[in-house]
C-alpha cells in the first residue's frame, strides 16, 4: 500500500513536471497579423427544363400568322418536333430553360453542343452538319418564327461518354480538354436562359425517313 502511494505521488510529480516543460511560457505573449488567402471553390447548380412553358411545340417556318405549335409523343420529356417534312424548317417554341445559381461572383459560361451527329434511328444513317439551331426566347413569350435567325449547335470534339441511344434517360455527357465558344455568358452569379430550337430538316430520299434524333449537352462552368 505504501509502495502504491509512493508510486502514485511520483507519477503526479512527473506529470506535473512534464506539463510545466511542455507548456509555453505564458508569461510572454505575442500578437501578430496572419494573412490568409484562399480561392473559394465555385459551387454551381443548374437545371435544364425542356418544354418549359405552356404552348411548347413545333411550327412550320411561315411568314405572317403563325400556326399553333404541335409536338410529338416524346414531349415533354424530350424536345419532339413530331412529324416533319424533308427540306422544310421548323421552329420549336419554349424548347429549353437553363437556370443557374452559383457562388461565383464572376458569373459563369454556358456551353451547348451536340454529342452526336443527327442520326436516323431507323437505319442508323448519320447526317454530319448543322441542322439544329438555338435562338433566344423568353420565360412566357417570344415573337420568333421559323425565319428568325438562330445559331447552330456544333457537334462536339470533346470526349462523349454515356449512352447516345434514342431513348430519353440519362443520356451522354461531354468532357472537355479545350472548351468551345460558349453559347451564353453571365456576369452575375445567378441567371436564366430561355431557348427556342430550329430544325432545318435534311432532304431524305423516299423510303429513307424515320425517327431522327440528336443529343444536346449543356455544360456550365464558373468564370
Amino acid at each position: 500500500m505504501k509502495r502504491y502511494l509512493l508510486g502514485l505521488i511520483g507519477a503526479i510529480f512527473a506529470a506535473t513536471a512534464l506539463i510545466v516543460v511542455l507548456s509555453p511560457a505564458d508569461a510572454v505573449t505575442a500578437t501578430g497579423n496572419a494573412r490568409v488567402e484562399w480561392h473559394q471553390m465555385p459551387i454551381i447548380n443548374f437545371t435544364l427544363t425542356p418544354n418549359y412553358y405552356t404552348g411548347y411545340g413545333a411550327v412550320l417556318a411561315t411568314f405572317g400568322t403563325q400556326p399553333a405549335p404541335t409536338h410529338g409523343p416524346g414531349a415533354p420529356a424530350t424536345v419532339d418536333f413530331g412529324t416533319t417534312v424533308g427540306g422544310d424548317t421548323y421552329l420549336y417554341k419554349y424548347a429549353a430553360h437553363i437556370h443557374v445559381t452559383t457562388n461565383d461572383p464572376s458569373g459563369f459560361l454556358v456551353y451547348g453542343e451536340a454529342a452526336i451527329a443527327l442520326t436516323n434511328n431507323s437505319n442508323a444513317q448519320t447526317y454530319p452538319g448543322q441542322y439544329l439551331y438555338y435562338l433566344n426566347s423568353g420565360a412566357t413569350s417570344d415573337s420568333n418564327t421559323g425565319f428568325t435567325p438562330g445559331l447552330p449547335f456544333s457537334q462536339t470534339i470533346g470526349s462523349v461518354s454515356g449512352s447516345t441511344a434514342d431513348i430519353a434517360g440519362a443520356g451522354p455527357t461531354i468532357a472537355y480538354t479545350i472548351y468551345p465558344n460558349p453559347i451564353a455568358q453571365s456576369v452575375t452569379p445567378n441567371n436564366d436562359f430561355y431557348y427556342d430550337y430550329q430544325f432545318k430538316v435534311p432532304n431524305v430520299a423516299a423510303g429513307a425517313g424515320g425517327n431522327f434524333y440528336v443529343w444536346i449537352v449543356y455544360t456550365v462552368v464558373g468564370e
Partner: protein
Amino acid sequence: MKRLQMFLVAAGFMMLALVLAQPVKATIQSQQMQIALNISVDVVGTPIVGYVPREAPSQAGVPSIASALRRAEPSMQRAFSAEGLHFAGDSTMVAQVHNVLVQAEVTPNPKGTILVSNVPNVSMMAAPGQTVTVQPLCSLTVSVNMATAWSLEEGVATDLTSASGATLPGTALANNTYKLAATPQPKPTPYIVYATDGSVWSGLASGTAITTYCVDLTVTVPASTVDGIYSTDAVYTLFN
C-alpha cells in the same frame, strides 16, 4: 363595211384578251419549294492571333493546394509566425452537365429534290470594317432540278442579329450568283431583306432546264459593329 367593223371588233377583243392573259399567266405561278440557309457572321474585333483557348483542369473540380511550413528561427520562437497559403494555378472551375434529347419524325418531301442546296448553313468571320468573301468560291450551291418552266427568287428573311440583340443590316450581305462552271458576275449583289423591304423577294433567275448556281457570299461589316455572332436566313423560293 359591216364585215370590216365586225373583224375590227373581234381583233380588238383578241388583243384585249392577249393583254389580260399576261398578268394572269404571271400570277398563276405557284410556289413549289422554299429553302432557308442559315448564314452566320462571326464578328471579331480583336486580333485572333494570340488567342489561347481555355483549358479544362486535369481533374475538374479538384483544386490543388500548394503550401509550405518551416520551423521558426530560435529568436522568433515566442513570436507568432505563419506562411501564406495559396491555391496554385487556375484550377477552380467546376462544370455541371445536363442534356436533352431532340427528335423528329422525318418524312420525305415529294418536292424536296427540286430545289436543294449543298449545305444547310454557311459560317463567315470578319472584323469590323472588313469585307470578306467566303472561300473557296462556289462552296455554296443552289440547284433547281426542274425541266419545266420555273423561276427562282431570293432574299434574306431579316437583318443579321446576334444573341445580344445587336444587328447588322441584311444588305451588308451580298451574293455573287452564277451558273456552275461559268464566270462570276463582276460584283456581288446585296440581298433584299424580306422583313424590311416590303415582304417581297427579288427575282434571281428563270429557266426550263436543270441548273446549278454557285453562290459566293460577301459580307461588309460596318466599322462600328460590336463583336458577336450575327445570323440570318437566306431564303430561296422556286415557282412554277
